[in-house]
């Protein structure tokens, strides 16, 4: 391994600050490794002219994927009721067995089996078994790679979600979308590079911590985009202010600023601020255009399930995701489920009611997204990631009912597009799905795979903070999951 390895073995000239403080513009170029810095259009030395930290940058290699859409199933869908077929559990309902589990109810050595509640059928050329929860998605299995042996460090929502989003169970690190925009910048400066869309029932627990840029500068923070009303906070001029008025106001502002700048030509931050008003003005037009789905055909609306009673909202978000990616947005994360309890996939009570609801909300939209990307030739460059922070246990959480507790010992996620080999399934859990047994993969391997598809060596994409070269995959590093890479 090279010097970019943990704690940075050689002393590099780190750009702690330039001029008046710690500037994001200087830090943006701080990707280590040969040749990488030179590729950057940013002022890595803190002395050259200002360029936005989100200017497009080249990764280490030619990327397979140029954008990511992360479909986040908040709460943790049950793998054995969806994609991880467990025929041997048939007929075992209510049987008490010895099995080690660890969820919010603590460590247990025994439990009452809750047999998977949906029937499975085989689909596609690959013959993948998929439960009746996902009749639409099932048609797309030949484009999907299933990871059945996922493991995570925590079976508790708060820390597990931080792990899935930022690679660490401790609060304070940047999440995947921030790493992506830090590494790649954004193709379209008129739109944010990293967009998060939330469930109308509320955000996930820990809220903004899930899309935080952590110790990185605010340039890499997520922008929340809403499916209804003004898409982005502060995007629309205040009520009553017309575009003409705003333009006049900006023209006057520009005159004041340019005059102020005259005697301070060397200060690039002042120039950057002036440029940012133009950018902001353009965003005011670009974002509403990007989110205007009336431009889409009725057939497209139908394909995404926009007309469905339950699937309308998520469908619209999936459609928006496609439109954003089409316009150069790097990273889109959509949350299925919000708030608490059964408002998301966290099926502690009635498993059937819970999963029937959330599957109905997302199945058609996700299938529509995959189909649409495929027919437009965009799937090959767009990496789709599906899953929650963990899976669920094979046994019941309580003496009565079908509710399942959390399970981070083994669960399923899937990926599609962006250079991922469709129609594959890797890793297995045991006969009950209680834990991963073969080819176990950690969340870090998933992250490594995502970075790899984006053109990065996941063990080299680093950011210097707190005395060491921080990486999304952590100090120990992690390898991409080669079996699913085309």
């Amino acid at each position, binding site marked *: *391994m090279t010097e970019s390895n*943990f*704690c940075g*073995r050689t*002393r590099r000239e*780190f750009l*702690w*600050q330039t001029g*008046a*403080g*710690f500037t*994001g513009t200087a830090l943006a170029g701080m990707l280590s490794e040969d040749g990488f810095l030179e590729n950057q259009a940013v002022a890595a030395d*803190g*002395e050259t002219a200002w360029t936005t930290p989100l200017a497009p940058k080249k990764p280490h290699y030619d990327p397979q994927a140029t954008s990511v859409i992360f479909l986040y199933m908040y709460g943790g869908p049950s793998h054995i009721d969806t994609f991880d077929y467990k025929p041997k559990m048939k007929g075992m309902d209510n049987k008490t067995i010895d099995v080690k589990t660890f969820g*919010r109810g603590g460590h247990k050595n025994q439990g009452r089996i809750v047999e998977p509640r949906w029937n499975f059928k085989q689909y596609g050329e690959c013959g993948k078994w998929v439960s009746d929860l996902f009749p639409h998605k099932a048609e797309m299995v030949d484009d999907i790679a299933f990871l059945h042996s996922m493991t995570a*460090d925590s079976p*508790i929502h*708060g820390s597990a979600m931080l792990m899935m989003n930022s690679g660490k*169970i401790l*609060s*304070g690190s940047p999440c995947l979308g921030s790493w992506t925009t830090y590494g790649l910048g954004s193709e379209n400066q008129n739109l944010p590079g990293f967009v998060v869309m*939330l469930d109308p029932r*509320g955000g996930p*627990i*820990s*809220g*903004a*911590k899930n899309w935080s840029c952590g*110790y990185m500068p*605010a*340039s890499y*923070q997520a922008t*929340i985009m809403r499916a209804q009303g003004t898409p*982005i*906070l*502060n995007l629309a001029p205040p009520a009553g*202010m*017309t575009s003409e*008025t705003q333009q*006049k*106001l900006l023209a*006057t502002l520009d*005159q*004041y600023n340019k*005059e102020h700048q005259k005697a*301070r*030509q*060397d*200060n690039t931050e002042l120039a950057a*601020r*002036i440029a*940012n008003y133009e950018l*902001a003005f353009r*965003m005011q037009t670009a974002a509403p255009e990007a989110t205007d789905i009336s431009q889409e055909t009725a057939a497209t609306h139908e394909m995404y399930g926009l007309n469905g009673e339950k699937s309308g909202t998520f469908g619209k978000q999936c459609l928006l995701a496609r439109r954003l990616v089409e316009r150069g947005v790097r990273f889109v994360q959509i949350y299925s489920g*919000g*708030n608490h309890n059964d408002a998301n996939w966290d099926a502690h009570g009635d498993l059937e009611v819970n999963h029937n609801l959330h599957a109905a909300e997302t199945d058609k939209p996700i299938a529509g997204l995959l189909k649409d990307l495929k027919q437009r030739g965009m799937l090959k460059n767009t990496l789709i990631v599906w899953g929650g922070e963990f899976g669920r246990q094979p046994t019941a959480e309580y003496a009565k009912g079908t509710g399942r507790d959390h399970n981070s010992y083994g669960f399923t996620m899937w990926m599609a597009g962006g250079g991922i080999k469709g129609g594959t399934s890797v*890793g297995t859990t045991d006969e009950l799905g209680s834990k991963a047994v073969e*080819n*176990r993969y950690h969340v870090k391997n998933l992250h490594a795979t995502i970075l790899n598809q984006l053109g990065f060596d996941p063990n080299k994409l680093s950011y210097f903070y707190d005395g*060491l070269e921080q990486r999304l995959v952590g100090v120990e590093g992690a390898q991409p999951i080669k079996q699913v890479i085309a």
Partner: protein
Amino acid sequence: MITRLSISTLSLLVLLTAAAATSAADADSAAFYKDKVLPILEARCFECHGPESELKGGLFLGNREGLLEGGESGPAVDTEALEDSVLLDAINYGSYEMPPDSKLPDDEIAILTAWVKAGASIPEGSELERPEIKHANPATLVTDETKNYWAFRPVANPAVPQVKNSTWVASPIDNFILQKLEQAKLSPASRAEKQQLIRRAYYDLTGLPPSIADIEAFVNDKSDRAFEKVIDRLLESPQYGERWGRHWLDLVRYAESNSYERDGTKPFAWRYRDYVIKSFNEDKPYTQFVKEQLAGDEFEPPTPDSIVATGYYRLGIWDDEPVSQKQALYDDLDDVLLTTSQVFLGLTMNCARCHDHKIDPLPQKDYYSFLAFFSGFKRYGDRSHESVQDASIGPIAINPEDRTRNAARQEMDRELGEQDRKINHVNRRLQELMTPPEKEDFKAVEVRVDIARKYAGKGLSNKLVDDYAAAVLRRKEILDTRPSEVAQALIIKEVGRKPRDTFILVRGNANVEGEKVEPAFPSVLSPPDPVIKTPVMTESSGRRTALANWIASDKNQLTARVMVNRIWQHHFGRGIVGSSNNFGNIGDKPTHPELLDWLATRFMQGGWKLKAMHKLIMLSSTYQMSSQASESELAADPANKLYWRFNMRRLSSEELRDSVHAANGSLNLKMGGPSIYPIIPQEVLAGQSRPGAGWGNSSEQERARRAVYIFIKRSLVEPLMADFDFADVDATCPVRFVTTQPTQALSLLNSEFMNRQAAVFAEFLKKEAGTDSANQVELGLSRATQRRPTKPEIDRGLALIESLKADGVPDDIALKYYCLTLFNMNEFLYLD
């Protein structure tokens, strides 16, 4: 399919039988190793433990010596008890699990087992060479040479250097600066204009703009002491503590909630904030400030300040539902160690948690010896609200005579008891009604009212629930407003007079304890042995007092250097050591090491008082330079490392917000007390799992208080603050970012807050400047820029207003839009 399955099962059986039947002699043969064992090792183990690997865990499996020597988990093969060898444990997924991605197939396990049981021999000629792992960097060993690193040497008292241009020198600081400039053949910039200088001084010391009257008084004061008088006045103003206290809050990861799922509120955290502000305003010696925070509870006797100060330990993130309680304890201790070593000592000791520090001479043992000072520490809490009360909340006054009973206090107690009775009654009823998951959730206090509401009309009467909600609010209010002699605070508590034992944790894993260690200071600093006395008055170990006394000492090589560097940093935008939390090898080298030591010496000689240091620095010519660039200097030293001019800077998020209120006349200078809640737009609240949860209401007047009083919720940072690079809320933040991004422009132009403030500004101008548009514009400009505007500038404003009116925009609105423009000006946000 069925046939295929049985065939493979069958062949597996054959294999298993074959392996099991391997005689010890066979398993000991060279052929067995080469044909059976080595291929498995190569395929499964060598990636991490082979001849071309980096030897994970220090283990090499390619030769006999490697097997016997083993790695961090001990020998891989135990020749005394072959069957108990760690290697076999690991491949069978016992206490270790190797290979980590999946367990080996049974036949391979059988082969390796046979081989190990037969003695794990490796035939001659098959022994592989152990790869050379890069030798430890000599800079990381504690030696005479590394002890001589600049930051680890005692603070020197360097002579003030001679310079040529002595007329420029106003303070010895200037000698140090000018010497380097002259060496580099650079000239210092001219003196800043008086208006620029006073604006700079006001913001630097108080975070607020001067008034036009302040500026004019200064400009017209022709005495030599004119600027000194301004400095003296500002240092005496209470707003000084609010500005400089906030710098300290950045360092100690100050926030008022815990992060994670519940992101619950830290009770009384604001008292720590007030303590910090008060300490700066009182010009408390820095040594005392350090001791109070690190060990104020162990003072004999403690003072209310010294008790509140220990809230320092409680400001970090807290996972109330950790995966492993043990690991969580060490994560919390690491947070304390990281903050303490970086903030007070400029050392990244946290990098030595899992292994020796890779850059600095800080062995892993030193990490755990340092950790031992905190090993009496009780965790913040254990899941429930009540546990937090037990572990982290206590009275401010410990002397019984302070708790004088009086009528007001009795009335408060009575009312508190009344609220408690109402609350406890409903809590008991709820315990009978709630589902098991709700009972689990109920442990956190934040969700209790929400849960109770679910049972309104379903087991609890509506009135009872309303009363419950009111009682919870009232109870908090009573606790927040009790007089100090009966008030509570967020404090540290220890497990008792005998702390936990501390062990080196192998690879930082809380479950793998190594050698036991005793408290000790980092060895590279050649420190004295800690003197630990068990306190009489408090149930704690006295270890933190020993630590505090060592840090807060003239003998400590780092404490004074680190703190004067921070003072310098906040005056000049960059420390003499740029990486102000890291004075180690990977940190920045000091640009002016002699000046740093000279300042550190002055600081100590002056009794560790900050205000004298501010004055010393601000009276220098270096501080009073213009920010104007000159071409030759800019070409030679574009980053201004040698200080040939003053650095321009943008206002911080707090300064920006405060300046908006200052400009439009609404700023409320009320100090202290529970935090305030600005209005957060619905779009932002929608990101919370319970939109609006944990965010309160404040009156308009309260919302116009200084930004340092805004409630800091880790998962919900006020958006204007976040956009303008507010400090990282989860970890110590030595230097804030200064980013420039379009969201800033959008929020200053379009946000509800800015537009509301623009309207207030317009009203203010109409009231103060009368009906004449030109007067309104002139006053607006002067309040935004703190200077008299020129005629063309006024005309430009008038032209905008006229043009908007011509479009049919009403007069009031046109003026409001002009005010909004003022708030967006670069000159409003940037200081020369």
